[in-house]
């Protein structure tokens, strides 16, 4: 028996050796749906056309620097389609090419569509675009991991900050877009969770449409002042305007002098330009040197997706997609994401647990979880849907 075991060991060593000597290749798919660019309210930050994919490319490059020492090589197979109809065929193509790990830069509807394709069986999808809470709850899928913080996590990050500062009374203004409604719903849930009060809630219906005319500012200021007049006393205005259509127009124009937070003003987000703590300067620089633009949250999520794959491959000493996918979800998996703490995936919904930044345009104001929000297992789980309250039943 010992002889057999020794033989098995020798065989195992022989099998392991070439994996280091020869290069083992892992190809990761990138499936994106490009959405026609809509210029936000401010012309200062036009949305780049390559948001997301640039983060994935940098992540692959970082993985390959490490791979030089581990004999592992990471390739990115990119499929970015312009037509929602093209998403499913692109996934089938990636699958047919032997790819089992796919970064999904897709809105929620398309993400679910491809997750439920027969060809997606055995694939792991890494969601870097859709913050929808439904994807982490009633519409969750076992083989989808979420790199971006959910809307609930963003709202909780802001809610904790407001509670810590005792700015408990909120005026909530939400826009007409579907995402705005979901964002507002997340804020409402957070308010219940942290005992904040939404003293008034108003839908934003005004379309100034004239900000480029010479007196456009006057109309906006007058409208916002009217809009916020005569409301119950509040400490802070929370805006839900995910597309950036009007949220920037609220600050400084309210009837009462109140700070603005939410999708504009003080923004809970996974990544922001002013963030340079915990070595983030290095990632910001590396990204800018490559792309001549700032890293955006979707870039960071896609970078994290590739790094999660790379880290799992390094630790598992394998480029087999099954082994890598298993390692990413395994207990003890620790991903460094320039947030000062190790990040890992929640086993109940596949969400990456992570601190959420609270940043204004030029200043990192705070990082949640806020001190004092305690948790039995991980303080990071005070953000978003925790295990006892999850509505996710994997299928």
């Amino acid at each position, binding site marked *: 028996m010992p002889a057999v075991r020794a033989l098995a060991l020798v065989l195992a060593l022989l099998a392991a050796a070439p994996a280091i000597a020869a290069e083992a290749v892992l190809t990761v798919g990138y499936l994106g749906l490009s959405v026609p660019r809509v210029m936000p309210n401010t012309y200062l930050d036009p949305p780049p056309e390559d948001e997301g994919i640039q983060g994935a490319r940098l992540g692959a490059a970082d993985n390959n620097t490490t791979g030089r*020492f581990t004999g592992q090589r990471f390739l990115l197979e990119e499929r970015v389609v312009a037509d929602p109809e093209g998403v499913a065929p692109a996934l089938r193509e990636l699958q047919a090419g032997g790819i089992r790990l796919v970064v999904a830069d897709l809105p929620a509807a398309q993400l679910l569509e491809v997750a439920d394709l027969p060809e997606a069986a055995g694939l792991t999808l890494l969601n870097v675009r859709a913050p929808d809470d439904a994807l982490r709850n009633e519409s969750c899928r076992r083989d989808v991991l979420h790199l971006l913080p959910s809307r609930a996590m963003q709202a909780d990050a802001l809610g904790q900050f407001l509670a810590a500062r005792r700015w408990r009374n909120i005026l909530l203004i939400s826009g007409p877009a579907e995402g705005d409604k979901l964002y507002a719903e997340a804020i409402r849930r957070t308010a219940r969770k942290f005992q904040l009060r939404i003293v008034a809630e108003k839908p934003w219906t005004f379309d100034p449409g004239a900000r480029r005319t010479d007196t456009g500012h006057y109309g906006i200021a007058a409208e916002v002042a009217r809009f916020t007049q005569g409301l119950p006393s509040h400490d802070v205005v929370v805006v839900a305007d995910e597309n950036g259509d009007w949220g920037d127009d609220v600050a400084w124009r309210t009837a009462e002098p109140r700070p603005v937070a939410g999708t504009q003003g003080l923004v809970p987000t996974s990544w922001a330009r002013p963030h340079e703590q915990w070595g983030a300067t290095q990632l910001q620089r590396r990204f800018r040197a490559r792309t001549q633009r700032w890293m955006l949250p979707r870039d960071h999520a896609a970078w994290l997706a590739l790094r999660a794959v790379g880290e799992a491959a390094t630790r598992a000493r394998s480029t087999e997609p099954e082994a890598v996918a298993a390692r990413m979800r395994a207990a003890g998996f620790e991903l460094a994401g320039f947030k000062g703490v190790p990040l890992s995936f929640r086993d109940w919904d596949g969400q990456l647990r992570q601190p959420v930044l609270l940043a204004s345009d030029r200043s990192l104001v705070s990082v949640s979880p806020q001190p004092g929000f305690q948790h039995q297992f991980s303080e990071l789980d005070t953000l978003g849907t925790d295990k006892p309250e999850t509505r996710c039943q994997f299928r």
Partner: protein
Amino acid sequence: MPIPLIPGAAYGVAALLLPLLIAQPPRAETILVSNEKDNTITVIDGATLKITHTVPVGERPRGIVLSRDGTQLYVCAGDSDRIDVLDLATWRVVHHLPSGSDPELLALHPDGKRLYVANEDDNLVTVVDVQQRAVLTEIPVGVEPEGMGLSPDGRFLVNTSETTNMAHMIDTGSGEIVANVLVGARPRAAVWEADGKRFWVSAEIGGTVSVIDAEAQSVTGTVEFSVPGVPREAVQPVGMVFSADGALAYVALGPSNRVAVVDTRSLEVQRYLLVGQRVWNVALSPDGKRVFTTNGVSNDMSVIDTATHRVTHSVPVGRAPWGVVVKR
């Protein structure tokens, strides 16, 4: 102004005056601290713990190391992409060394000539000849090279790479990487034990220190930390230094605001000492009696008495103090 820290109120005024009344043994040593956000080096007299000079250097000074003869200080000025050479007699930057992009940490070879510099932005270790003032060679390493530790005999350089999560063992003779040892997430410092048999690598995000056998080129032990009342995530080991007899290691634990005292045989933590906020690096006095720490958030330097393991002083320095060395 150094602020004496009183261990307990019972000591009262007498204790407060003690450090002032008792004639201190003459200490010729000088403590040098780099201030990342002030672009200065703070110079502190070891005997009085008073600041004697504040010297302007290049932008974002972090890693610092003394020349072999102790007359010069090499300063990584990261945002200036160069190394400043500070003359310790005149307190002036006398010249610059080429460093490659964004130098963060450095190590000087025992030959006093070869300076090894980690370039965070380029995934390189640059080797600089300090006499020729020229780059000798560049060694490609992992993503975000950081910690630099030379073996006591100068044969091996250990470089850590923060995103690759490895300690690279580099043969200084050939300039080749001879081993890559996987360690905890975001490795920072690499320091060798005096006999050159083992080196320690701290992992900021992993929250552990890996003890690596140089001969076997593998991790033979791991130091784990657990500070009561402090979340695990806040325990981030960074700078390390060994006691004069090598029996203990002092490990800076970042935002947990503690320095761990670790038994180097059992690898057990003996105690945690509360210092300033976000303690980053540590240095030992030449007589082995004191450990100095840089506290990046509280902008001060803590002084630890190694006999009593009490934190005796806090010396306000510049903004975001980072590196610390002691000149005899």
